[in-house]
């Protein structure tokens, strides 16, 4: 009986754990580290990341500096877009406030930093926390 219960618990646990399919960004985003400016009229296709920003980010450590440090260390590029522009895209259905990093796979939003979540504050302020978060979703080369 005990064995059956353990087995059922394991099945339940595995069933409830959402599997994250880690993936590579498109090749062109590796090898350089830069913010590539885009607006709502030229949203790219494929796998990529977008940094969307407000002009008020005035943390002791600016979040853009944290993201750029990750990019420099791993030679990876992100798109960048003012939040005013992001509001005109489909991503605004989920990303209500900036600044944020959006991870896009096959044109769909997979994950993002939530400016209204206490859990995400360290990811805006610490390279290691940000790296741990983003590398849950994407591979670095």
């Amino acid at each position, binding site marked *: 009986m005990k064995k059956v219960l353990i087995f059922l618990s394991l099945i339940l646990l595995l069933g409830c754990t959402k599997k994250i399919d880690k993936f590579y960004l498109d090749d062109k985003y590796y090898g350089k580290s830069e913010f590539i400016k885009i*607006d709502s009229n030229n949203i790219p296709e494929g796998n990529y990341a977008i940094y969307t920003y407000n*002009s008020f980010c*005035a*943390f002791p450590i*600016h979040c853009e500096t944290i993201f750029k440090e990750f990019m420099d260390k791993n030679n990876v590029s992100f798109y960048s877009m003012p939040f005013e522009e992001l509001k005109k895209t489909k991503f605004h259905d989920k990303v209500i406030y900036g600044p944020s990093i959006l991870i896009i796979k096959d044109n769909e939003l997979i994950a993002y930093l939530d400016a209204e979540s206490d*859990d*995400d*504050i360290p990811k805006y302020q610490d390279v290691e926390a940000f790296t741990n978060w983003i590398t849950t979703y994407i591979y670095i080369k």
Partner: protein
Amino acid sequence: MKEKIIVGILCLVIGIGGGYVLFRNKGKVEKPLPLQEKSEGMRGVYDIDKNINEKTIDNYLDRSDVAYRDVRMLEDTATWENKGGERDLTGFVRGFEVIPYAYLTEFPEEYVEQKKSENVSGLYKGKTLFRLDEKGNYVANYKESMEILEYIFPKYKTIFLMCGAGGYANFTKQMLVSLGWDKTKIYNVGGYWNYEGNNRISTKVEGSNKCDFSKVPYYNIDFSRLTEIK
């Protein structure tokens, strides 16, 4: 006797009616506001309120017990266009009166440096009512500074602060609290850029990139008429 009764009734009616007309707008009791509650996440770091903010502000307009203040400049001196932003105050929420934070006090040095690193330069560096000393205290630059501040931000009212995205409103709140205002009566209601309600007033002139600031209720501080403290 009959005449006296009629005159008496008339006086009563006039008295009650007149009193109603005179006092109907005075002492109006507003519904209590939700207590302040910080938003979660980064918005909370800026002290943007969880209950009264860009998404809900329409439910809290036109209150007689609230002073509504927008702390952006009509035309900002900084190069916000380098970050995809705008210099002009292209719109505001009805009922908010504009008093730029930049004229209240100087920007913290670390903020100026941060903006430089983002390629935003030229933040306003002109005259201000207060300055920051080396210990981070606000010091009046003019004899009239405090009087002006108390006029614009009446202490007997609740104050709703708004700016572009919540940052300058936070700076303003910090300043007011440091100068003796009651923290519990000052709400950072967030930024106009996140506003999606029905009380937006656009200053943009149709078919042009220009703005018409005559629509904006604005506190003009004429520093040349103030008495500088040396």
